[in-house]
C-alpha cells in the first residue's frame, strides 16, 4: 500500500508535465531554482569539509539547520498549501490508519523540497567525513533530520488544511502570511546591517548552544560533537532527535486518524444586517457597482493583500535608500507618490478578480461607464485623502512648504494616470487572477505572456505620463520654485485627461467585449 501511495505521488508529479506549456515552464523553473539552491548548498557544505574550525561549522550548521526545520514546519501553516495527498482523500478506501500515515509520509519524500533537503543533508555528511565513526554519526543524524523535516511539513500541512478548512480562516491566514513576509523583509534587512564582524560569532555561539539542545537543533549539532570527541553529548543529542521523530510520528498518526473520521468543518455564518454601502451610495448602477466594489475590498482577502502592500512598499524602498546614503531630507517626498503609483495600479486587473460572476454585468447590459466609474470609487476613497494628507505631512517633514503644489501635482498625476490605464486594461486585457476564495498566494492555473506585458505597461505608463510633473518638482527644488506651480497644473490636467480617456476607452471595450471578458474568466 505504501508503494501504491508512492506511485500515486510520482504519477501526480508526472501528470503536472501534461498540462499547458506555460505550467510546464513554471514547473521547470521551480525545479531549476530548487536544483540551483541544492547545488549551492552542496558546494558550500562540501568545501566546509576542508575548514579546520570545527566549532564554527557546528554552530553555523545548528543555527541554520534549526531555521530550516522551523521553515519546513511554518511555511505550510502560513501559506496554506493545496495538499493533493490530504489524508481525507483516502478516508473512503478503508485502509488502516498506520498504513495511510506511513504511505503519505514516504510519498512526501518525492518532490522538489525533499530533493533539495536530501542533497544538502548528503553534502553535510561529506562535511563531517572526518573519521569512520564521525561519518556514521553524521549519516544517522542526517537520516533522522530528513524524516523530521518531512514529518514536520506533513503534520503542519495537514494541520493547516484541517484547521483552516473554512473559507474565512483560510483567507485570514493567507493575508497574515503576506503581512509576516512583508514585515520580515525589513527586519531581515536590518539584521543584515548589524555589525556581524564584531558581535556575530558570540551571538552565533550562544544561539547554537541553546538551539543544540532543542528538538530543532539537536541533530544538526551531533556530528560537530562527535568530531570534538564529546561522544556522550553527541549520543544524548541523537537520542533527543530520535525522540523528536518518534513524537512527530505519533502526532502524525493521531492527526491522520482524526482527519479520517472528520469531514470538512463549516464555521457558523456571520450575519450582516441591512444593505450597508448599497443603502448609502446613489441608487444607480454606478452607485451599486461602487458599493459592491467597496464591499469586496472589505471582505475579500485578495484585496487586503493589495492594500497591505501599499504602505509597505515605501518602507521597502526607503530603508535601502537611507542606508545607501541618500539624504533623508529629500526622501520624505518619496512615499506618497510611490503609494499613489501602487494604488492606481491595484485595479488594473479588477474585472478578472470577479471571475465568472461578471456574467451578471454582461447579461444585464450594464453600461460600460457605470462599470468603470463604480470600480474607481474605492481607490478614490482611499486615494484622495492619501494625496491631501500625505502630501501635507511629507512637506511638513521636509521642512519647507514650497514644494506642496508640486507634491500634489505629482501624486495626483501618478494616481489618476494609473487609474486611467487600469480602467482601460481591466476591460480590454483581463488576464487570469487568483480565484475568489483561494489563498492570495495561490497562483492562477492558466497564465500567458500577455499578463506580464499588461502589468508592466500599466505600471510604467503612469510613470512616463507623470514624468513632466516629477521633473517640475525636481526643477522647483534645485532650480527655481516657479516650477512647483507648473508641476501642479500639469499633474492635475494630465491626470484628469488620462482618467477620462481611460474610462471612455475602457467603457467602450467593456460594452463591446462583454462575452469575451466572460470567456476569458471561464478559461482562467
Amino acid at each position, binding site marked *: 500500500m505504501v508503494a501504491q501511495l508512492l506511485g500515486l505521488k510520482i504519477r501526480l508529479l508526472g501528470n503536472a508535465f501534461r498540462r499547458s506549456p506555460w505550467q510546464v515552464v513554471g514547473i521547470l523553473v521551480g525545479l531549476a531554482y530548487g536544483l540551483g539552491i541544492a547545488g549551492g548548498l552542496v558546494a558550500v557544505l562540501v568545501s566546509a569539509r576542508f575548514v579546520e574550525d570545527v566549532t564554527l561549522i557546528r554552530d553555523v550548521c545548528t543555527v541554520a539547520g534549526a531555521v530550516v526545520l522551523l521553515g519546513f514546519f511554518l511555511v505550510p501553516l502560513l501559506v496554506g498549501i493545496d495538499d493533493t495527498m490530504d489524508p481525507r482523500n483516502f478516508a473512503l478506501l478503508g485502509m488502516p490508519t498506520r498504513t495511510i500515515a506511513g504511505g503519505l509520509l514516504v510519498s512526501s519524500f518525492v518532490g522538489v523540497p525533499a530533493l533539495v533537503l536530501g542533497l544538502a543533508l548528503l553534502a553535510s555528511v561529506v562535511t563531517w567525513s572526518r573519521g569512520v565513526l564521525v561519518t556514521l554519526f553524521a549519516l544517522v543524524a542526517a537520516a533522522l533530520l530528513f524524516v523530521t523535516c518531512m514529518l514536520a511539513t506533513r503534520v503542519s500541512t495537514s494541520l493547516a488544511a484541517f484547521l483552516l478548512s473554512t*473559507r474565512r480562516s483560510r483567507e485570514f491566514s493567507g493575508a497574515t502570511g503576506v503581512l509576516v513576509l512583508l514585515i520580515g523583509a525589513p527586519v531581515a534587512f536590518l539584521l543584515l546591517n548589524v555589525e556581524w564582524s564584531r558581535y556575530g560569532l558570540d551571538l552565533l555561539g550562544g544561539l547554537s548552544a541553546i538551539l543544540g539542545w532543542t528538538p530543532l537543533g539537536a541533530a544538526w549539532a551531533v556530528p560537530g560533537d562527535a568530531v570534538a570527541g564529546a561522544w556522550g553529548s553527541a549520543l544524548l543529542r541523537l537520542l533527543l532527535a530520535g525522540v523528536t521523530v518518534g513524537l512527530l510520528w505519533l502526532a502524525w498518526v493521531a492527526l491522520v486518524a482524526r482527519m479520517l473520521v472528520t469531514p470538512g468543518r463549516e464555521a457558523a*455564518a*456571520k*450575519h*450582516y*444586517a*441591512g*444593505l*450597508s454601502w*448599497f443603502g448609502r451610495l446613489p*441608487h*444607480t*448602477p454606478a*452607485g*451599486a*457597482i461602487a*458599493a*459592491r466594489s467597496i*464591499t*469586496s475590498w472589505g*471582505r*475579500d482577502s485578495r484585496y487586503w493583500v493589495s492594500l497591505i502592500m501599499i504602505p509597505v512598499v515605501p518602507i521597502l524602498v526607503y530603508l535601502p535608500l537611507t542606508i545607501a546614503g541618500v539624504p533623508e531630507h529629500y526622501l520624505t517626498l518619496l512615499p506618497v507618490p510611490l503609494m499613489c503609483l501602487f494604488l492606481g495600479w491595484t485595479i488594473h486587473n479588477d474585472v478578472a478578480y*470577479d*471571475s*465568472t*460572476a461578471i*456574467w*451578471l*454585468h*454582461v*447579461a*444585464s*447590459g*450594464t453600461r460600460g461607464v457605470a462599470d468603470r466609474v463604480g470600480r474607481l470609487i474605492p481607490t478614490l476613497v482611499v486615494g484622495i485623502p492619501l494625496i491631501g494628507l500625505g502630501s501635507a505631512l511629507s512637506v511638513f517633514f521636509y521642512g519647507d512648504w514650497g514644494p506642496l503644489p508640486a507634491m500634489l501635482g505629482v501624486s495626483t498625476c501618478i494616481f489618476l494616470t494609473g487609474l486611467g490605464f487600469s480602467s482601460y486594461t481591466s476591460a480590454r486585457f483581463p488576464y487570469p487572477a487568483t480565484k*475568489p*476564495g483561494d489563498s492570495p498566494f495561490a497562483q492562477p492555473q492558466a497564465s500567458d505572456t500577455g499578463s506580464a506585458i499588461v502589468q508592466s505597461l500599466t505600471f510604467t505608463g503612469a510613470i512616463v505620463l507623470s514624468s513632466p510633473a516629477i521633473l517640475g518638482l525636481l526643477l522647483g527644488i534645485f532650480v527655481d520654485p516657479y516650477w512647483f506651480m507648473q508641476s501642479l497644473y500639469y499633474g492635475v490636467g494630465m491626470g484628469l485627461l488620462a482618467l477620462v480617456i481611460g474610462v471612455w476607452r475602457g467603457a467602450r471595450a467593456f460594452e463591446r467585449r*462583454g*462575452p*469575451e471578458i*466572460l*470567456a476569458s474568466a*471561464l478559461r482562467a
Partner: protein
Amino acid sequence: MKKFGPNTAVAGIDLQVRAGSFYGIVGPNGAGKTTTLSMITGLLRPNAGSIHVHGIDVWAKPVQAKRLIGVLPDRLRLFDRLTGAQLLYYSGTLRGLDNRAVRERSADLAAAFGLEDALNRLVADYSAGMTKKIALACAMIHSPRVLVLDEPFESVDPVSAVNVTEILQKYVASGGTVLLSSHGMDLIQRVCDHVAIIVQGTVLASGTIADVRGTSTLEERFIELAGGRTVAEGMEWLHSFSD
C-alpha cells in the same frame, strides 16, 4: 452555431419558442444545452446564426434585448461576498430598477423562495440549493418578458422546487415565457407545455410535449433518441459480494 476550436458544440439549432410558453430543453451531458442558452442570453458570442427575442436581435441590439431577458446561468459564480439582500439589490439596480421597487421586490422574492432567514448571510456561505434560489430570484427581479433558466432545479429541495414551479407557472399564465433546461424528465413532462430534445448540438425533436412523446413517456422517447440504453453486460461480479 458555436465552435470551440475544431469542436462544434452546437450546429444548426432552429428553435421557435412562442411567447407565453413553458419550454423545456433536454439532452444528455455535453449536448450543448448550456452553450445554446448562453448564446440566447448574450453571454456567448455565436460563430453564425441569429437569435431574436420578441423581434429584437440579441447580438445586434444587445442592450434592448437583454432588458427583456432574465438569466439563470449554470456553473457561473455569483458575487458571493455580498449578502443575499445585497445581491438582490445589486441585480435589481443593474437592471435599472429604482430604490423603492428593488426593496419591495426583494422582500417579495425572499418570501416566495423561503430565503428570509438567509438574506443577511454571505452568499458564499449558502448551500448549493440556496445559491440556486437566490440566483433565480435575481433573474426575476426586473420582471423580464423571457426567463432563460439553465438547470433551475438542480440541488433544490422538493418543497422549494414546487414553490418555484408554481411561481413560474403563474408567470407563464400572465404572458411570460420560460425557457429552461433540465435533466428531470418527469418534471419537464409535468411542468412544460413544449419541449426540445438536443443531442450532440442538434435538435432531434421539438414541439408540444404530447407531440414529442407520442404514446410513450418523455423519458422513454428521450432515451430512444439519445442513442438508447447500453445494456450492462459482464457485471456479474457485482452480484457476488467480496465479503
